[in-house]
């Protein structure tokens, strides 16, 4: 499988190459969030058959959140894998997502009028880094939730990113313990 590296803005959900199957034909991530039932029912029967029910039912876990509103997100990450993964995770939670692979494209996208409820932005980015991109996005009046999601881990980096305007500094990986409360807040769920 080859990943195409975009050099500029990616403005649609269907940025994955044809060979990847994460998206359906119309660009929606293939996860049904309507299944708020404990989904152990299908698996449990087979899992518990045979010898002695050692298998666990699929637990009603921390990643069970059903969004009531249409939420949009932008992922800004220079690493293909991380970008597509974060996009995939957000789509699995039911958000509509776009992604770009550099800070300059992110700023341009916002400048062109695109609005997002949530932005995930890495610190080290090609062309324009995450700190400066964040600064410029905030300067344009974007008040949306911005999470700095980065492999950087120093206190200095944390302060710099927060000072530039991210609401939270998240050391990769972005896990549900951070994401779900954010989504609940954005969705107006108490």
């Amino acid at each position: 499988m080859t990943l195409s590296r975009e050099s500029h803005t990616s403005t649609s959900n269907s940025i994955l190459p044809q060979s990847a199957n994460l998206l359906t034909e119309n660009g929606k991530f293939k996860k049904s969030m309507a299944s708020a039932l404990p989904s152990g029912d299908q698996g449990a029967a087979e899992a518990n058959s045979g010898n002695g029910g050692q298998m666990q039912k699929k637990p009603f876990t921390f990643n069970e959140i059903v969004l009531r509103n249409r939420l949009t997100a932008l992922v800004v990450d220079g690493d293909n894998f991380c970008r597509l993964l974060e996009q995939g995770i957000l789509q699995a939670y039911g958000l509509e997502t776009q992604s770009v692979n550099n800070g300059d494209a992110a700023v341009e996208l916002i400048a062109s009028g695109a609005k997002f409820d949530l932005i995930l932005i890495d610190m080290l980015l090609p062309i324009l880094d995450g700190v400066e991109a964040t600064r410029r996005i905030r300067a344009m009046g974007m008040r949306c939730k911005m999470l700095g999601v980065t492999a950087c881990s120093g206190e200095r980096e944390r302060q710099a990113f927060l000072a530039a305007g991210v609401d939270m500094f998240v050391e990769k990986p972005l896990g549900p313990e951070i994401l779900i409360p954010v989504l609940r807040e954005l969705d107006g769920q108490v």
Partner: protein
Amino acid sequence: MEVGQMQRRLVDYTKTLFMEGFLDAQFLQLQQLQDESNPDFVVEVVSLFFDDSEKLLNDLSMALDQPNVDFKKVDAHVHQLKGSSSSIGAQRVKNACIAFRNFCEEQNIDATLRCLQQVKHEYYLVKNKLETLLRLEQQIVAAGGSIPTIEMGF
């Protein structure tokens, strides 16, 4: 082998990977995003990780093979690999990257070359483990069973 046995084998294998530190909780979280409407999420994500990592390892080898090594460039590649390996839950690769970055800061050629070998070693180990794990899952699905979920608190 019947489905129940296959499932137990998968659970045991997965637990071993956790206990040996190859995978951490992040991988479990990714698995939980996979369901019947999205049955290939994990295998797709893992494939992406392989592609991405192998490119990074190639870039790293080239960067360290230069007469005048650009340690900033090396560090940038390692940083990316740290990010992606932590995002998929490949804990030992991530830890190897952390050590690698320390030596990049020191601009220590010999140490960084050793680190590269270490990272490659850890990467190929986890790649092998993940391929085995995915194969076990595929066998279960092919036999009509479902993939059991691992509880986090084992």
